[in-house]
Structures are given as structure tokens and as C-alpha cells.
């Protein structure tokens, strides 16, 4: 039986000030990650190693991802 490879991503969500470990399918992208976390891509920017990455960027196992809210402070 062919086992589907999965990856584990470490995510920091700044709006909630929380860290989470998210498991995704092997060839998942930033878009899949946001979808799984139910975050609207319009409302955030995403970085890996302090560099911005777009929704179609593929993620790798053990990636450290930051999801930063674009919502104004007030």
C-alpha cells in the first residue's frame, strides 16, 4: 500500500499570538496552509525565514512560517 507523505509546518499566527504545528499533504502550498487554518489570504502576509512568500509557494517539512495580519491597529 502506498503511504501518502505528509509534512509538518511550525506556524506563528501573530493576530492570535500563538504557535501551532500543522500537518499537511506532501506537496502543499501556502494557500493549502491558510485554507486549513481558515484564514482569508486577503487579510495576511506570510513569511518564511523573514522573506515574504506568496500563496502558490510550496512548503517543506519543518518550515517555520509566520502569518502576519494586515489589519490596521486602530
Amino acid at each position, binding site marked *: 500500500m502506498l503511504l501518502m507523505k505528509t509534512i509538518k509546518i511550525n506556524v506563528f499566527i*501573530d*493576530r492570535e*499570538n500563538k504557535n501551532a504545528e500543522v500537518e499537511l499533504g506532501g506537496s502543499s502550498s501556502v494557500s493549502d496552509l491558510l485554507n486549513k487554518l481558515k484564514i*482569508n*489570504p*486577503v*487579510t495576511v*502576509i506570510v*513569511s518564511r525565514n523573514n*522573506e*515574504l512568500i*506568496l*500563496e502558490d509557494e510550496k512548503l517543506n517539512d519543518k518550515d517555520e512560517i509566520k502569518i*502576519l*495580519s*494586515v*489589519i*490596521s*491597529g*486602530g
Partner: protein
Amino acid sequence: MQIKLNNQNCCGEKPVIQLTAGEKLCRGHFNEYFESKVFKTIRQFDLIGKEENLGVALSGGKDSLTVLTILNKLSTQNPKIKIHAIAIDEGIAGYRDKTLATAQKFCDENGVKLNIFSYKEEFGFTLDEMLKILNVKPCSICGVFRRYLLNKKSRELKLTKLATGHNLDDECQSIIMNQMKNNIEASARLGPKVGVISDEKFAQRIKPLYLCMEKEVTTYAFINGLLDNFNECPNAAHSFRAQVRDMLNDMEQKFAGTKYGIVNSFLETLPILKEKFRGEMVQVCAKCSEPSSNDLCSACVYLEKLRKSVMH
């Protein structure tokens, strides 16, 4: 700026953003795109003249730091445009103290004078104290006192205009909120340049980020080191504005360009609205002599209630 697109990418560099129309821009091209968009907005709506004593309302958040960064560049190119930063300390424990520290650090590093005015010093109460005394919506009372102070202090500092960090998302939310509340007169006071220029009681306010989406502003702030680690105002999360914002973001995700559509169509109707609701002579508050549409301005009405509640 003309960016040549190669398979939707601006060049061989790694992209940092995908624009609404689909183009992917790298850091360098996005900086060029964003700054030229702001300068174009300034020209298109005649926001800044050749000689100005320009104030920038600074909260320490990404929008106001972005405005200050770009206007500071403009000031460097045109020394007749002088820049002063104004910050309001409402007294929101655990929030504003952090953003003010960021604002002060930025101004120190960039040679901009920062003038800080506090609710406590000007009105005798912090916002936190006001909200313990009166049963009112935080954003409503806070907005009244903030606008009051910004206008009064701009005048005292002899500023020719006051620039704010309002972006396309803010404007879009205000337009829809006014529609939902059937308050079109309030929409007549929106737009990239607001306030009565001919009355010495009013400081005219300008919005250089008027056509920039919040995601673009955040991207600019991130790649230029202007993004700090703090969240939205603790009072704002459950406001009517927050619900309208979430609804608009859902629509933008499903139908890209929704926000541009709303603001651009609003701009078409704005001259008609301004004409319809063109103000009569500006009245002044009987108590404080600040501009007001009633006998007493909203700030004085709130202050009376606060003082009475404290006495009882």
C-alpha cells in the same frame, strides 16, 4: 513606472506580492510601484502643494509609519515641505504605550519631531477611565476626542495640512458603513482630501494611501522594516467597522477588485455628494469654541457627562 511583465513576474527576482490584477512583483519593483502609486495619488488629488508645514498623524502602526516614511522622502527632495509628527495617547493600557514607543523610536531615527498629546492631560481622563464611567461604544467616543485633539493641535502647530494613514480598506469600510446606516451626509465628508480649507478653525486632512490596499501597505511596511509586533486595538475587534471589514475581505477573496470598485465608483459620486451637503458657515462650540455642527461639540457633551458622573 512601467514594469515589463514576464509570465506575470516583474523580473527574475523572488516576488513578495501578487497584485489584484495578477502581477507578481519583487521587493525592488514593489517598492517602486508602491511609492509611485502614493506620489501619483498626491498629484491626482492635489494633496500637497509646493510649500507646506505638513503634519503626519502618527499612531506607530504600519499605515502611519508608511505615510511618514514616504512623506519624509518627499520632504528630503523638496525642503519647502516641512514634516511634523503628531501622536495621540488615548490611554489604552497595554496597547498605545507600545505603539507610541515605536513611533518615538522611528522619529528619533529619522530626524522627525514627534509631538505627543494625551487625553489624560487635555481632558482629565484616559480612554480606559472614560469607558469605565460611561456606557458607550469605545470607537465612537475615542474618535470624537482624537479628531478634536488632532484638529486643535494641528491649528496650534500652524500646520497647513494633516496627513493620515487611512488606506483604501479604511475608506471602503467607511463608505459601506455609511450606506448601511443611511448616513450619506457622512460620506460627503470622505475622500482623499477632507476638511474645510477656507476656515481657519479646520486643519485640512489628506490621505496619501487612499488608493493603497491594506495588504500592499503591510507588504511595504514589512520589506522596509516598519512592521512591529502588536495587534489591533483591543477595543476595535468587535466594532461595527470590524464586521464590515470582514465582510469586505470575504468579498475581495471571492471577487478580486471589489474594494477598488467600491472606492472608484464612490469617487465618481463624491462631487455630487459634496455639492448636496455643502456646509453653511462653520459653527463653533459655545463652550470650547472648536468647530461644531451643534451648540455644543461632541467632545464637550461627553466631557460634561464624564464630569457629572464623577461628581455623583
